[in-house]
């Protein structure tokens, strides 16, 4: 993990600290708190999760009465969003909306830094419309109001809105710089009756790499690790990268690019990978041991492919590790091995002496495991 989405309530606290208007709100963690909620009705009741797509999944409701508020709180706290339980519920006064805008700052690889994005039509359908206006800023200190104003003129016809957007954009850059965020997005940025601009939502993504000098980021990572599924947590602690997928071939590989290449090769051979599992961060008996343990237990995994290309990695050491591990292993799921690169001649000998075959290429190994899994099924 390198980037971490925080909850809306956490994101809005950052906006408020920069004097960006947000609806009056209260964060609720218990039914008692819901009963004594002081926000004037009607209200929006919103699940607080660090996962996207919450609105479409029913995580945002309107409540017109105290009873509706309690019901909405109960319902939302019982839901799961991409496997995640809400940490709390945010209750906000219902906004009288004239228009919804979109405003964000985000890191962009081709800009080499921050990009400011604006659309005069924001809201949930932003992704279906034309792409937002883009102002490539780079370093935050390179933001120039006059340059952004010139870009905005043909897109935003209301000069008052334009000036307010410019002022908020500069503050979003300040927030991103000061808190080391890779994204600070307001969607929608609401034009309320009377013309005030109010941030109705906040999506803030923290740069995890900055945790060594940002205490808030470090504690957000610790909290997210506590919430994560046990297996993901174990892998993170052991410096393995795991993403579960839907297929049947358990894949243990080295390096992000090569792991994806192996996933694609499995697809090319007519099967599907069960995971992205990169052990290059810890190619030791402990690392491989955990990888096999997870895949042997996973019911959807029908066979395991170990594919490593040794660059700096000595494949003969990996071979020794695998021989010991396979001798101890109790699972009967088929395993196919492919160790290529640095000292792979030695690796082949070590494997052969222990009764295992080392496939010469990724493609040969993939073909073999896909065939074995297919035979076991039929």
């Amino acid at each position, binding site marked *: 993990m390198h980037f971490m989405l925080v909850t809306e309530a956490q994101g809005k606290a950052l906006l408020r600290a920069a004097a960006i208007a947000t609806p009056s709100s209260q964060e609720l963690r218990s039914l008692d708190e819901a009963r004594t909620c002081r926000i004037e009705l009607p209200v929006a009741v919103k699940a607080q999760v660090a996962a996207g797509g919450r609105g479409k999944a029913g995580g945002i409701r309107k409540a017109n009465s105290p009873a509706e508020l309690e019901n909405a709180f109960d319902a939302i706290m019982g839901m799961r969003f991409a496997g995640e339980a809400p940490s709390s519920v945010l209750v906000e006064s219902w906004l009288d909306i004239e228009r919804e805008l979109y405003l964000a700052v985000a890191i962009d*690889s081709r800009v080499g830094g921050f990009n400011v994005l604006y659309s005069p039509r924001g809201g949930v359908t932003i992704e279906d419309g034309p792409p937002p206006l883009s102002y490539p800023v780079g370093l935050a200190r390179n933001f120039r109001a006059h340059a952004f104003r010139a870009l905005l003129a043909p897109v935003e016809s209301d000069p008052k809105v334009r000036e307010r957007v410019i002022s908020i954009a500069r503050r979003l850059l300040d927030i991103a710089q000061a808190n080391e965020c890779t994204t600070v997005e307001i969607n929608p940025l609401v034009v309320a009756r009377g013309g005030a601009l109010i941030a109705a939502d906040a999506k803030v993504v923290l740069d995890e790499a900055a945790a060594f000098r940002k205490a808030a980021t470090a504690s957000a990572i610790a909290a997210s690790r506590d919430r994560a599924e046990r297996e993901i947590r174990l892998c993170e602690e052991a410096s393995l990268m795991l993403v579960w997928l839907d297929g049947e071939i358990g894949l243990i590989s080295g390096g992000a690019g090569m792991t994806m290449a192996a*996933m694609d090769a499995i697809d090319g051979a007519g099967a599907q990978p069960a995971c*992205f599992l990169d052990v290059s961060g810890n190619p030791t008996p402990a690392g491989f041991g955990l990888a096999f343990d997870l895949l042997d237990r996973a019911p959807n995994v029908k066979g395991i492919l170990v594919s490593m290309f040794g660059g700096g990695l000595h494949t003969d050491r990996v071979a020794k590790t695998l021989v010991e591990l396979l001798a101890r292993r109790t699972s009967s799921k088929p395993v196919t091995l492919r160790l290529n690169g640095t000292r792979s001649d030695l690796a082949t000998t070590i494997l052969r002496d222990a009764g295992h075959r080392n496939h010469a290429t990724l493609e040969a190994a993939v073909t073999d495991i896909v065939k074995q899994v297919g035979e076991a099924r039929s």
Partner: protein
Amino acid sequence: MSILLDADARVLIVGITGKFGTFSVKDLAQSQTRVVAGVAPGRGGQTIEGVPVFSSVAAAMKETHANAALIYVPAAVALDAVLETIEAGCPLIAYPGDGLPVLDAMEMRAAALEHGAHLVGPNSPGLISPGKAKLGFMPSFCYAPGPIGVISRSGSLSYEACFRLSSAGLGQTSVIGIGGDPVRGVNAAEAIALFHGDPDTRAIVYLGEIGGSEEYALAEYAGRPDAKPSAALLVGRTAPAGKKMGHAAAMIGSYAESWAAKVEALDRAGVVIARDLDGLAAAAAAALARAMKPAA
């Protein structure tokens, strides 16, 4: 020829007294690369594997006329080390480290551009011009001299891909790892421009992935009438949207970041597409064959 790094390279290693730095002195020597200096604050006057150590980059540059730097320091002090090296006048710098905060990557990139220096990295194995010199930690046996310029977002993929190209007789002028982070020194567009200007590079091979937008730089280049022929392999065809695949930048956030959208843009621009690693050597050979033929 090659890009950025040639047989006249005089390398200094910042962080030479660390584990990676000391390993690298021996590793580079085996790749016919001259390591002329090391830098470690407070350790000036010592030697590591016969290489003189200086307390500052400026002192090392003055004494040894180094012209390329390899930076092996922890992420927390990498920005300072890279700025010191850029400001000491070193024209070529590789910073392979990962886990670098994006704000620091942005500052490194801006400083390199301001000083006219080339920065390779972060989160990259570096740069190699096979048979000439190496500025990084990639395994030398994977590479062979030849006419192909290789650009890669992934270290592990570039090792195996180049091993396959070399085994198929398709050697490389230079191989540059532009890195797996969202903000980098030399980016895809800049690497392409360097290969375009190198007379010995006859074709370009691009190793990309899902996420981000770097691949569109190749599509834009390939559409030019004077473009050198190119081939591309993008990995992550089977990766689901919204999940990060190891690299910080390898995540499909929008359609434009998906495998299908990128491959379509590259294909339309005339880039030879390798659907899998298995098809890479053939795609590279096809691109090279176009370079050998006079334009119709």
